[in-house]
């Protein structure tokens, strides 16, 4: 029995082992079998995938089809690493390199090479810092391609330079995703590094005016460059880094000034949304490209014809490494040497093209596609859209006094409540206010460590009482907090401030009357400071904050010999806003896209563009995206010279108006840093506020929570904005009355369509 029993156990054990081995083997097979897909789908596995069999698709001679979706066919041409997208319904084509037929033969070998190459690289030599450009036509290379279910994965090696990178192209329905996985980038040569990287620079290009249409650039609220013949007027086009310049790398060079004192040139707008678009209106084919990852180190370019070559093209240029200038000594006049970043950008580089055709192939279609993209990916969420007129107040400023400074109270808490009372008498209720300069030490005493109001405006308890009591009346007071800037005069310690990559402390010069310059906090310290302040505010049950500084600045920095990139800064800012916004009511000052989801409202959003020569038309692109999702507030109306037009722009874009007021006369600010604020007195603005409130509130109530479904400019110049709920608003910016759709609108006026 015993032996029998033993035997049975043995047999069972053997079977078990066999089953186990079989399971393991099959698991391994399944695992191995899934390898190519895994690479393609973005997992960071490094084993060599199995090459595709030749003969199935011959990619050596001409474009071959590699993927197909409901509406599009994706073709691929390996030697130039080029793709071609065909719309199955219309036959419209978007090509990523200049075809031989369309080559005008005017450019030299380098330019032609770049035009006909799906990948272009900028190189930098480590020691000499000389840069070079690489493309597939002029540099020796090998390309290995794997064919995936919905596209390709190719490994491109520039053999002479030891540089390898993998590019994955996949057609996902009406979206084309182009991605360079971070791990696929290899630099074997120790002296030559990747500087910049572009994939499909010419995707959707057109030659001169062969095709009607435009390129969309994310400048200000949005702007278009037409695809007409520019006749060589512009030597270059739009080239702007997403989320602004990196102050940790690029030195801020002061421009020339009037009488050596007065800065007259205004900075151009920051790119808040990492998008660009191309519309071929004749073919009714368009795309909106979203830079999905690597956006923090990426430049958007839109080059009209005449800028070097006669092709219109727009693309994203990723900055893998940057060059900063390293001073050779501590002296202020020390000579500098250009130095290349040791670490390259550690991020996948992804551009997602949202393809649009038919009626959707215009900037409105782009706006909708972008809106859906943001919503689908949780990058924005629907917020409370109720209308408020924003009336910001300036609390306390400082002016020089004897050896130090003294408070210049402009609006005390008591006066603020009087302002509300007087506005209420004018019929203005539900005011949203950002209280600037509420903190101990006045507007520029930053960073704010804890919830403590300046005694000159009435002190903390008054402020707390006002915020809580006014909330019951419907007026929301947000406390302004620049969580990034450190006043160099009120804070002498520099251990927690941001140092540039060249290890020099960053200082932002403001040429103020009282305070000359500001440091930036390091991201970690900025986050901690913010958390501390919020904790202290919560103790007093104060939950409204208008956050600035970390919402629209992004930089690389160095600390204790280590380098930190914009990616890390961005992640830290996102983390700290995410943590602190919990249970708080946060409105953000001109936020970059990665913070949009935390904003219950966005402040000081641009209504215009930066007035570039090559821009043909302004469109309120961001407003078309955000209206009906997140409330946006304009810049201050006070300082506008063309009030009527500015007002109409708010009507058109659905932005809410902003005013900046004080109880005291603004001439009191003449010796403070705020002496450029020349017109603030509430006395001058009460009537205007009431009027704006009346008209824009009425519009906002009509529109409700709907989004914009269409925006067009009729032939006579009348602007027509259509909302999801059917409300149509006509805006006339011209000096004569216009009629469109049977609606007559007076000169410089607007009307709601029936």
């Amino acid at each position, binding site marked *: 029995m015993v032996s029998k029993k033993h035997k049975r156990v043995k047999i069972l054990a053997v079977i078990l082992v066999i089953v186990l081995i079989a399971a393991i083997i099959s698991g391994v097979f399944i695992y191995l079998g899934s390898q190519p897909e895994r690479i393609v789908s973005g997992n960071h596995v490094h084993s060599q995938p199995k090459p595709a069999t030749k003969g199935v698709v011959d990619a050596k001679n001409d474009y071959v089809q590699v993927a197909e979706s409901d509406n599009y066919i994706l073709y691929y041409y390996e030697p130039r690493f080029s793709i071609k997208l065909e719309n199955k319904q219309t036959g419209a084509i978007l090509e990523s390199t200049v075809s031989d037929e369309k080559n005008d033969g005017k450019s030299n070998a380098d330019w032609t090479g770049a035009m006909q190459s799906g990948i272009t690289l900028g190189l930098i030599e480590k020691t000499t810092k000389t840069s070079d450009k690489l493309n597939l036509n002029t540099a020796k290379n090998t390309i290995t391609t794997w064919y995936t279910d919905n596209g390709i994965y190719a490994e491109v090696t520039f053999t002479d330079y030891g540089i390898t990178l993998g590019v994955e192209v996949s057609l996902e329905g009406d979206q084309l995703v182009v991605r360079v996985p971070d791990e696929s980038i290899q630099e074997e040569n120790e002296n030559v590094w990747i500087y910049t990287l572009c994939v499909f620079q010419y995707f959707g290009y057109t030659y001169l005016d062969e095709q009607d249409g435009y390129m969309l650039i994310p400048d200000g609220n949005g702007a278009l460059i037409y695809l007409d013949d520019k006749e*060589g007027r*512009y030597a270059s086009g739009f080239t702007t880094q997403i989320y602004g310049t990196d102050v940790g790398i690029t030195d801020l060079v002061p421009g020339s000034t009037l009488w050596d004192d007065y800065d007259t040139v205004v900075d151009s707008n920051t790119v808040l949304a990492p998008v660009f678009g191309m519309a071929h209106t004749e073919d009714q084919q368009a795309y909106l490209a979203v830079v999905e990852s690597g956006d923090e180190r990426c430049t958007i370019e839109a080059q009209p014809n005449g800028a070097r070559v006669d092709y219109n093209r727009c693309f994203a240029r990723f900055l893998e490494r940057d060059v900063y200038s390293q001073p050779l000594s501590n002296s202020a006049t020390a000579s500098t040497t250009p130095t290349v970043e040791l670490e390259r950008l550690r991020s996948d580089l992804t551009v997602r093209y949202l393809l649009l055709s038919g009626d959707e192939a215009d900037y409105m279609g782009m706006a909708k596609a972008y809106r859906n993209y943001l919503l689908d990916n949780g990058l924005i969420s629907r917020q409370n859209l109720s209308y408020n007129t924003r009336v910001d107040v300036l609390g306390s400023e400082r002016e020089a006094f004897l050896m130090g400074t003294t408070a210049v109270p402009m609006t005390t808490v008591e006066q603020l409540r009087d302002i509300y009372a007087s506005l209420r008498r004018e019929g203005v209720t539900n005011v949203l206010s950002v209280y600037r300069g509420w903190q101990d030490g006045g507007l520029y005493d930053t960073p704010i460590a804890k919830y403590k109001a300046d005694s000159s405006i009435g002190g903390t308890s008054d402020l707390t009482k006002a915020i809580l009591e006014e909330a019951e009346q419907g007026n929301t007071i947000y406390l302004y907090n620049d969580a990034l800037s450190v006043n160099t005069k009120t804070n002498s310690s520099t251990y927690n401030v941001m140092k540039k990559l060249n290890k020099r402390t960053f200082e932002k010069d403001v040429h103020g009357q009282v305070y000359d310059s500001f440091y930036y906090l390091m991201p970690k310290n900025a986050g901690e400071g913010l958390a501390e302040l919020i904790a202290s505010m919560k103790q007093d049950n104060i939950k409204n904050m208008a956050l600035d500084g970390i919402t629209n600045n992004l930089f690389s920095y160095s600390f204790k010999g280590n380098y930190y990139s914009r990616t890390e800064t961005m992640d830290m800012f996102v983390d700290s806003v995410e943590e602190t916004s919990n249970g708080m009511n946060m409105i953000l000052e001109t936020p970059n896209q990665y913070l949009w989801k935390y904003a219950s409202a966005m402040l000081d959003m641009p209504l*215009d563009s*930066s007035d570039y020569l090559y821009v043909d038309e302004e469109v309120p692109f961001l407003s078309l995206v955000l209206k009906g999702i997140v409330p946006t507030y304009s810049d201050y109306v006070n300082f506008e*010279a063309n*009030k*009527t037009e500015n007002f109409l722009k708010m009507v058109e874009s659905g932005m809410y108006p902003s005013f900046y007021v004080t109880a005291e006369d*603004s001439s009191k600010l003449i010796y403070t840093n705020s002496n450029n604020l*020349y017109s603030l007195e509430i006395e001058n603005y009460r009537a205007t506020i009431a009027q704006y409130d009346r008209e824009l509130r009425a519009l906002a109530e009509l529109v409700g929570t709907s989004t914009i479904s269409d925006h067009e400019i009729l032939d006579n110049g009348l602007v027509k904005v259509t909302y999801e709920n059917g409300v149509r608003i006509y805006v006339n*910016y011209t000096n004569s009355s216009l009629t469109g759709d049977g609606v007559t609108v007076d000169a410089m006026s607007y009307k709601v369509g029936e």
Partner: protein
Amino acid sequence: MKKLRRYLVMGLVALLLVTVMLPFASYATTPYVTYTVNGYGQIRQTQTAYLAYATITKFGEEVSLSAPSDICIASDGHMYIADTGNKRIVEGTLDGELIKVVGEGVLQEPKGVYVLDNGDIYVADRSAEKVFIFNQDGELINEYGKPDSPLYGDEMKFMPIKLVVNDAGIMFVICESNTNGIVEISPTEGGMFLGYFGTNFATTDIMTIIYRAILTDAQRARMISNTPATPTNLAIDSKGLIYTVTLGNKSDTLKRLNIAGTNMIKGQGDTYADAPAAVVAGNHDNVYVADQQGYIFEYNSDGEMLFTFGGPNDDSQRVGLSKMVSGIAIDTEDRIYVLDSDLAQVQIYEPTEFTELMHHALYLYSKGRYTEAKEPLAQVLQMNSMFDYANKAMGRSYFQEENFNQAMYYARLAKDYDGYSDAFWELRNVWLKDNVMTAIILCVLLYVAYKVIHAIDQRNHFLNPIRRTYRRMKKNTFFNNLAYAGYYIRKPADGAYGISAEGHANWLASTFILVVFTIEYIVNKYTCGFLMKTVMEGRYEIASDIGIIVVVMVALTVCTYLVSTINEGEGTVKKIYTFFCYSLLPYVILTPVQYALSHILSQNEIFLTNMLQIVIYAWIVVIAIVGLKEVNNFTAKETVKVIFLTAFTALILALLIFIIYVLWAQLFDFIVAIVGEGVYRLGF
């Protein structure tokens, strides 16, 4: 890949080229800020005054510009451009349509162009050394070479670069390197030379004079010769007044010359362009100046700056910034046309609502419609209550309406001293008229009262208690010393002897006088009449005022004492302090008078208070010196010596304090650096 620049009127032409209409390509954030100047002469930001409206890079289909150097908008509403690089004049409409090209084959280097109402085109040709005149059809009808008048100067070349022509056909020509002034040529007799006009004068600063005195001839020869600058550009307005701009001499930068060549602008030079390139008269008695770098200035007829905006192009390709401005013109709608020779384009700016309101007010005001002018002015002030120029105009309007109270209020806001004074004069006049009888009656009553009291006192001495009190007070040391101060300022020599030898030196009374002095000084400084006020309204720096007085008194006393002592002077610290304080008594006594006067005098009589001020200071200086001499028992010679030594000591003291301060600052920086380094290394 430099293609021919083709033309573009943003918005307008794009409309023709593109199917989509774009009516508002010009509406955008301006790439520049606008500044104005307030009543105190401070530069202040204000609303954007002009927006970039359009850019013309090409006329018609074909005609583009090359290094253009002058622009003129004629009464026919066409613009004429001296297209220097292409040796021609281009005539076009204001929106960039080509009308015609003039002077091809004739012109060699057209640098200046001016067009008369009858359509005659005057061209200054530098290389041809001639002024050419073409008629409306572009035919050459006349030309003028170098004037043969001996007055012109035989050696002097004739290289015309800019010109304007008045209604009588007289040409005002700026010639390169002719420093005598603008050449004035009459069309009669083949170009009669009428003389030089609007000559600038060479200025000599004090350093140049010193250099000249000490340098050798050879060195002097090497100095940059001090010749007057040739005007850079000129313009003429509808009244025939000539405007010139000159690079170099600050105060001569902008001139407004009447027919006699007299400059009617009393310019301060603070708000003038650094490198003026062109000037044009506006439609509202205003004048525009363009700086080479792209700054555009608008001034009123008095040369006061209304706005400055624009700026140099930083290669970011933004509309409204310039590279090298060479000409400026203005159309009837106040649009500014700025010619850029580097960019070979005309940049057009249009006034904003704000500026239009301002111009409208200026227009109404110039037409004498003061009441109407107030309406747009009020709107301007509502947009920017600190726009002092509007405050000033508002004040002047009220003045014309004879609402002097309001006029005074606005003049004071605008720091318009003349306007304030005028309004005040009128108000005072009214007051005097109303109150003259009351005043006379009051005087008579006072006199009668005095007589009556005197008479009663004579009879029953009811004022005796007061007299006794007065006598008792005189025995009190404090009051005695105060009275003695009065004696001192009348007879400083005797008085100082008293301080020195008769025990009149004391701390209490002296300090009392010093305190009263300080109070009066502060009250006078901050609350005297507006016309006499030297500090900004609403500014109080009382603590630092007191600080300065204390520091000066202490330093003066200590230094004088130290110097006197080593010079065998007999003064003690107490004595020296006493006589210094006593010496301030004239100020204490007379300042209330001055203070009162400052409130009742207008600009015309303000010299009275100035005179009074001189009397006060002279008195103080004299008694202080005499006091110094007597207290220390110096001879006159010793006194002078001591005064110089004291001044020197004070200087050394100041220097010493400064050095110590700097050293401390260095030490402090060093400590901060060490701590910072430690913190950084340890990484807190």
